[in-house]
């Protein structure tokens, strides 16, 4: 049983906070590479960043199973997501609508639902917790939402990560969508985006 006395608070104003957070998330998703600061993002439970917490509180519910990497799979995080979002926590990546992994995890988005050619919308969205969104090596991103190209320096990701990304992008219209989270900021990388190494 979760102990409600130790449960971190969720959104202070569920309807309006979720609306504002969604618009920030939509802004990020429709401008890949843009670093978006989330308004009124609550402090996360355990090792979960404020941005990842806000993302899940805005979009996860009983219809969207969540998979947590071992860094985040702690009772306080599970209880938080169950209590505030009603989201089931699942043991298999393939069953999840949302995943949370840490930068540096090998094959961070391997095994998640990629969707199908007929229903590419059924793919998972994976949140990647990174140290920060601008101090890493600059890479050029191109695709829908970006005028020409943009330079993005997500920290904490090796070359293997971007090889994996190229393989994911090549599956379009299938493939996972990524959201990089750090502190109260996030940056979206939908499957439609090509990243030049």
């Amino acid at each position, binding site marked *: 049983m979760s102990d409600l006395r130790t449960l971190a608070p969720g959104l202070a104003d*569920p309807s*309006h906070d979720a609306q504002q957070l969604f618009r920030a998330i939509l802004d990020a*998703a429709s401008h890949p590479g843009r670093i978006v600061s989330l308004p009124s993002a609550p402090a996360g439970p355990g090792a979960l960043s404020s941005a990842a917490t806000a993302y899940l509180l805005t979009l996860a*519910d009983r*219809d969207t199973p969540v998979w947590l990497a071992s860094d985040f799979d702690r009772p306080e995080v599970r209880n938080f997501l169950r209590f505030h979002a009603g989201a089931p926590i699942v043991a298999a990546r393939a069953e999840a609508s949302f995943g949370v992994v840490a930068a540096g995890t090998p094959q961070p988005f391997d095994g998640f639902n990629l969707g199908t050619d007929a229903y590419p*919308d059924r793919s998972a*969205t994976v949140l990647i917790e990174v140290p920060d969104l601008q101090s890493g090596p600059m890479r050029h991103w191109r695709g*829908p939402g*970006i005028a020409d190209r943009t330079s993005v320096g997500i920290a904490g990701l090796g070359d293997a990560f971007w090889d994996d990304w190229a393989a994911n992008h090549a599956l379009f*219209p299938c493939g996972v969508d990524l959201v990089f989270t750090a502190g109260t900021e996030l940056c979206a990388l939908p499957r439609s985006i090509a990243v030049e190494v």
Partner: protein
Amino acid sequence: MTENSAKDGAYNYAYLDEQTKRMIRRAILKAVAVPGYQVPFGGREMPLPYGWGTGGIQVTAAIIGRDDTLKVIDQGADDTTNAVSIRRFFARVAEVATTTRTEEATVIQTRHRVPETPLSEGQILVFQVPIPEPLRMLEPRETETRTLHALSEYGVMQVSLYESIARHGRISKAYNYPVMVNGRYIMSPSPIPKFDNPKLDRSPALQLYGAGREKRIYAVPPYTPVKSLDFDDHPFEIETWEQCCELCGSKESFLDEMIVDDDGKRLFVCSDSDYCERRRAPAEAAE
């Protein structure tokens, strides 16, 4: 505790319950990730007649907040019954400011037109869509059209357009002219005149399309290529008029033909009422 903070105590904020909004929000994000692909969404029926534009209303209700300024147009005009009703609805249930000025709006819900005034980054254009499937007239079976999109197998559309050229000497479709989004999906731009199609191409605004009856959402992110289908020997062309607008003199805007007297005298005026009014009162508009 605050789920019922709308002025109208009987409804949740922006009318839809939070779970329905979350579901629509998730569908919007997937639609943005796969430009031009129609994302099915579930949810309960809106207790509104379909002609009202329930798909557009659901999308607007899922995104709108108290910081937004909403513009609603129907056939280009802000003052039609439909546009006024939808604007009042959101002013009441979502406590938003409303405007008729295109550049002041953060969210524009539209039926049948894209504003003449160029849109800018940060604006969201929400289209009301009656029939989301561009291949429906050619292939009635949903399982078939879904397969054709999955395989990017669009020969049936090419054949249809070429038949139109063979019969009429040109592609006769004037509204709902099909487009190719980011080189992958054929999409219905909703019943806008083909005159508006070029405005969809690499627009800095985000385009969201909501179909209520068939429960589909699709999107075109900013700066995404949107190409009207055509052939090398029959390139896409928009409508032109010999007349200019009777009221503002515009030669660039989409004109509606009006019959003004019993003798059948006709004149042409801008379909976009905000654009036309602003051109007639430039000093006032510039303040």
